Every structure is written in C-alpha cells, then in structure tokens.
C-alpha cells in the first residue's frame, strides 16, 4: 500500500548517490525485498516507472531479488520457512517464531553511467 512512498525513498537515496558517486544516469536499480517485509513487488514495479520519470533514473530497469522468509522456532530448536510474518511454526504449530530473514527492503546495487 505504501509502495509509492517507498519508491520515493528509493529515488531520494539514488539522488544522494548521484551527488556523491558522480553519475548522470542509472540503468538498473536492484532491490532486495524480503517476503515478510510487507512490500508487494508488483505494486513496487507499478509505482517505480512513474516515480523515476524525469529523474536520473528515468527508464531504469528495476530488478527485484525476492528473499524467502525464515525463522527460528525456540520450541523445536530449528530454522523453519515462514510464508507469513506471524505464522506458527510449521513443525510444531507453536508461537512465536523469531524472524531471521525476509524482513529486508534494501537497495542492493545500482548500475550507473
């Protein structure tokens, strides 16, 4: 739902980078989006082009790396796959499972000219 403002934050970070790393154009933006981050990759793609229009990242290609959700179940003392943020442990059905991976929303790298 807030993917529009996330895209605006991405652009802000790109513009800061353009100043410090001295580039004129971004060709590719690579994001890492965890399955448990609450970010919808499709909505992100939808907003991306319109937010980047007229900027240094106009026409840039958006690459999204999906990161699967992973948690640690203290009851069965093992790492488990999580589909949703507050799912019960798929092995023992208990709560809570500590989230270990899949919460991130990061800019991984930029391909720039």
């Amino acid at each position: 739902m807030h993917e529009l403002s996330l895209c605006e934050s991405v652009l802000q970070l790109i513009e800061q980078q353009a100043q410090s790393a001295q580039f004129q154009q971004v060709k590719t933006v690579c994001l890492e989006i965890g399955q448990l981050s609450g970010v919808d990759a499709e909505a992100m793609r939808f907003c991306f082009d319109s937010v980047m229009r007229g900027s240094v990242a106009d026409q840039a290609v958006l690459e999204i790396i999906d990161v699967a959700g992973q948690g640690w179940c203290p009851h069965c003392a093992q790492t488990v796959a999580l589909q949703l943020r507050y799912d019960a442990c798929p092995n023992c059905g208990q709560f809570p499972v500590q989230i270990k991976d899949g919460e991130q929303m990061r800019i991984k790298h930029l391909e720039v000219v």
Partner: protein
Amino acid sequence: MCGVCGCGDSHADQTRHSHVFGLKPARMLQIEQDILSSNNQFAAHNRRQFAEHGVLALNLVSSPGSGKTTLLVETINRLQGQARMAVIEGDQQTSRDAERIGATGVVVRQINTGKGCHLDAERVGHAWQALAAQQDFLFIENVGNLVCPASFDLGEACKVVILSVTEGEDKPLKYPDMFHAAGLMILNKTDLLPYLDFDVERCIAYARQVNPAIEVIMLSARSGAGFQQWLDWLISQRAAVLSHAAAG
C-alpha cells in the same frame, strides 16, 4: 585492461565486443542501504530531541473511525492543568480533527499527507519544531490506516494502537505488523460491548499471538470506564522518560 575501450576486459582471446565509442561504460555501485534509512535517520533525530526535552511522544495508530480523536480530546480534558500537552494531527485532507483538538486549548499542528497514507519522521520533526512550546506529552495522531504507519518510525517512545469493539476481534491477525509494532493496545468503545458479539478474550489472545509483550487497556472514551488506567499508564510512561533522561 582493454586499451581500445577501457572496459577492464583483457580480450586476450581476440573476441570483439560491442562497445559504442564515445559512451562511458556502465559501472556497478554496491549500495546495500535500507530503503527506509532516510526516514529512520529523521526518526532517530526526533527521538533524541524528545528525550532531551523530556517529552513523552506517542504515535497513535488505528483504522479510521476507532475513536482516536475523541480519546485524545477526553485525555486532554482530564490532564489539563496537570500536564503540558501538544498534538500533531495527521490526515490525508482537512483540518477538522485539528480544530476539534484546538478547541481544548492545547497547541496543535495539522499535517495533511495528501496522496500519502502515513506520517513520516521528517514532517513530524518539522511540525514539532513549529509547535514551539514546552510539553510533557506529545500525541501524534497518525492517519487512520492499519497498514503503512507500521513501517514508518516517527521517533516516538511507543506506538499505541486503538481498536474499537465495533471492529472485528480478528484485526490483530489481519493487520499483524501494526499490532506487532505497538507497545499498547487500547480496546475502545467498551460501553457498546453489551450490544455486540465482540469476544474480548479472543481479541487479546490474537494480539498476543503477534506480539506477546503487548499491554492492553480497555476503556470507553464516552462513558469514562477504564479511563483512569490509561491516564495512569501515560503518567508512568512519562516518569520513565524523565528517569531515563536523568540517568543518561
């Protein structure tokens, strides 16, 4: 390095490649930066400011229509004269809530988020500076939305999620991020419980499923039932801010 195009490839095998002369080659920049890092920096700044000024800042979040503004007006009326309070109001449009709050006599700033669905830390920081008044309590009434405000730290000491009993008891499961992020859940409009099928125990169990540490206060801003518990909670949280500041 290739002396023709400077691309970094040795081309030892004499392969041709498709560089167009006159264009600079693209390069990779490793960024590894959180998308929300800019908001988080502003939030950290706000948090320091609030702590330095001994302000307990609370971020009030809920669905639209849970009774946030009525709860705030009642809170202000009851603490008036005992504590200095200020309010930052977030709404997509209009200053209707700010006018209701302003009628109580406390200082208030309205932020209209326009197309945005949440308050962000930078706008809250500016609004707080513009308040230009000493406070004990800063209430930030976020946009009525149980999704987006969960991700945006404003620098508050605590998120307070307000759920009215006219909503479904399964809201904590449907919007887990918000109930996970909150330190306190207020079950509001409890005066209506006799007319509803709302299962209080189940609602609290759902909230604790996503956040085992969440505190719960049941009250009715309209009848006043349970209100003292909320006021006591506010005063104890503010005392914690002061003792923390003294220790720090």
